[in-house]
Structures are given as C-alpha cells and as structure tokens.
C-alpha cells in the first residue's frame, strides 16, 4: 500500500529538528533510516501529521572514541557500525550482532538511533546496548539529558523519551578488563531466513580469570517479552564459580524460566522459549570459549 498524507520537513541542524518536533506536537514523527517507519506507513499502521527527516542533519553520522567511551551519532548506519574498526575493537558483540540485523539493503539505510528509539524487543541492537550499559543523549528545545537504556526501554515499541525529544547520540562505555583476565562475547539467533525477524535469540558476555573463574557475566535475550531483556539471575549462576558447561546449561534454564515470548505463526510461546534457551546456552558457551582462547 501507499503511505497516508503527511507534511515533510528536512532540517539541517538538531536545533531546527527539535523546534519542528516541539511545534509538531504528538503526531509529528522523526524519520531516520526509515526501515521500520516507512513499512509502518505503507501498511498504514502509522499516520503521522508531520515527518521530520533527520538524514540531512549535520553532525549525527560520526563514530568517536573519547574518555573511555564510544560515541555513535544517531544517524550512523548499521553497515557503518558493522565495518567500523573502533566498534570491532571495543565492542565486538555489537559488530557481531550487526550481521543479524536484517539484510544488506536494510543495513545500508537503518541507523543506530532509529533502532534504539524503535525499541523492538526482538531487535538486535537494543539488547546489546542494554548489556553494554549504554546511554542515549536526548535533545529537545528544553535542553539535553542522558538516559541509560535500561530506563529508556519501557515496553514494546515504547521508550521513556518525551514526545519532543530526539536521540542524537548513543554512548557505550568501554569495558574494564584487568591484565590476565579476558572477556569473550557471542551473539546467537534463530530465524527462518537469516536476517529475518528472529524466532529467538540471545547474547552473552563472559569475563573469565586465569583460574577459569567467571568474574562477571551478562546474558541478554531477544524476543523474550515486551522489552529487550537481560537476565541477572542467569549471570549470577555463571558468576557463582568456575565456568563449566553445566553452569552454562543452568544459566540458560534460569534465564528462560520466567520469560513470556509472544506467540506467532512461526512459533508458539513454549517453542520460542525453548529456542531462546538453546540460543542462550550457545551464546554463553561460545563467549566463554573466546575468553579462554584469549587467556591461553
């Protein structure tokens, strides 16, 4: 189908975009890569009065490393993140996850700010940001604030952004790793066609000491509920001692006991829970293998 009628503005500064958004009221929408919003318009699930196109806004397209953190402009495309050496070096889990974000044509348009604001619980980037303690910079005519992604993701397609706020940047802090220890990470996803909407997925970050004891762990789940999920209980299982396959199995079971995946034509909630459990196990095992290889 075709999009409904809307007005269109293409500002060149964040200030102008914020002013247009404030004046446009609740029916104004921001357009970044458009790879979720335009399908929603085509299907007429969304009917904004005004689209504010951010693609011509200066200064939102860079990746910078500074003060122990990586700053990604909201308009950085997925294909850029996927090939960026700074990202690969500091946040290999984000680089790896990019291979699962839709298809090449979509990655050439989709943006990190857009997927973050879209807050899809089955999307790859929000889960990785959650596991990386990332924050977003929200700009409006009223000023600027930073929001941790744990506070940002409220529910399915719902964030704590005010209607007049624009995500201008995503900030990911570097991970501290003492000498002699190592971190490994892994992203695992199951879909009917690679790049399609995941039936289930999981990601893990495992930090091991030279003695094989798990110093810390993060376990993230895709499509497990109403928002990107992280399982502290699964991490606690892994952190309770020396890493083992048995601990990984138990962590995967704990992570998926209480989740409520939505059922659809490709899988009912029970099946999807099983898929997520297996993906969690594989992610934890692979992450630990990578950490061990780095210590050895």
């Amino acid at each position, binding site marked *: 189908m075709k999009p409904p009628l809307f007005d269109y503005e293409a500002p060149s500064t964040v200030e102008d975009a914020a002013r247009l958004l404030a004046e446009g009221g609740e029916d104004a929408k921001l357009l970044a890569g458009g790879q979720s919003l*335009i399908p929603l318009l085509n299907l007429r699930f969304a009917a904004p009065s005004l689209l504010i*196109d951010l693609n011509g806004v200066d200064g939102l397209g860079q990746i910078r490393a500074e003060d122990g953190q990586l700053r990604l402009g909201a308009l950085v495309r997925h294909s850029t993140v996927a090939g960026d050496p700074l990202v690969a070096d500091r946040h290999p889990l984000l680089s790896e996850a990019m291979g699962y974000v839709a298809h090449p*044509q979509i990655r050439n348009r989709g943006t990190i700010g857009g997927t973050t604001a879209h807050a899809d619980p089955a999307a790859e980037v929000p889960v990785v940001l959650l596991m990386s303690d990332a924050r977003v910079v929200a700009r409006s005519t009223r000023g600027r604030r930073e929001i941790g992604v744990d506070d940002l993701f409220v529910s399915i397609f719902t964030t704590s952004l005010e209607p007049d706020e624009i995500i201008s940047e995503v900030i990911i802090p570097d991970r501290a790793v003492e000498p002699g220890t190592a971190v490994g990470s892994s992203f695992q996803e199951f879909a009917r066609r690679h790049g399609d909407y995941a039936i289930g997925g999981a990601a893990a970050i495992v930090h091991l000491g030279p003695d094989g004891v798990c110093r810390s762990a993060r376990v993230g789940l895709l499509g497990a509920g109403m928002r990107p999920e992280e399982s502290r209980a699964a991490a606690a299982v892994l952190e309770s001692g020396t890493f083992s396959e048995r601990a990984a199995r138990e962590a995967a079971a704990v992570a998926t006991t209480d989740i409520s995946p939505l059922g659809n034509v490709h899988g009912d909630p029970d099946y999807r829970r099983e898929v997520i459990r297996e993906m969690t196990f594989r992610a934890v095992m692979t992450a630990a293998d990578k950490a061990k290889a780095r210590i050895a």
Partner: protein
Amino acid sequence: MKREIELEVNGDRYQRAVEPRMLLSDFIRHELRLTGTHVGCEHGVCGACTVLFDGEPVRSCVMLAVQADGHSVRTVESLAQGGQLNRLQRAFNECHGLQCGFCTPGFLMTLQPVVDEGKQLSDDEIRDAISGNICRCTGYQQIVEAVSQALAEPQEDERAGTA
C-alpha cells in the same frame, strides 16, 4: 504540498515536484517511467525494488522520493550498454538464474556492487549477499551459480552507470 526535487538517475538529471508521501519506487516507475524496477511486497521484505542509492543497494519501496533530492540513483536499466547485457546479466541468462524474472532487477542491483568490487566469494558468502532478496522460481541454486560465473569472468569496464 508538493516539493521540488532534483536528482540524478542512471546518469541523467531530473527535476520533478512530488508529494512527500510518494515512495521512491513509485517515483522511478510512474514519474520517470523506468519500469524495470519491480515492486513486490512494498514493505521492505522481498527485495524486488532494490536500486543503488549513492552507489549502495537500498530498497526503494521504503524510501521517499523527496529523500532522493540531491542524490544519485541507479536502476536496472543502467546495466546493459548499447543493447548488450553486462557480465552479471549474461551470467543470469546462461545459468538460468531467472524464470519469471519478477525478482531479477532486485537481485541484479543487489549484486552489481558485489561484482564491481571483484572479490571472489564462497557460495555461503554469495547466499549472504542475496539474503535480502526473495525468488519464488529458481530455488536460488542457479542464482548462486550465476554470481560465481560473473565473479570468475575477467573484469571489464562495465560498472553500473559509468558509460
């Protein structure tokens, strides 16, 4: 309200007034009458409408024509030169990489930058490159063979739209 846009398509400059809600795919087909670009699902899943936007494959059904203002677009019409199929098109023909042909323009525009880059790819890498395009006829095997053949042929000066 219509907006004036100016863009380059297959090396030609065009100026048009378009409604903001006009999709790039519809602009290409209905305004420019370049009907080689096909529209399948119209929500970014099937890949039939893939064109090159500033040299990169994108789905033209999930972009607005107004977003192409000041940019360059290449469609499947830019591939053959002087009535001669290019290397990639020839390989699709010879390997039976198409039957009904509906999806073919999207496959070709997805793959032309891959062929231009000239890197040899494994079958798995080729399948990854075409993961965003759906074909309901071939079963993909002959498409993978066509890409292998096109990549194996010596480079000619046939980059999309340079002629």
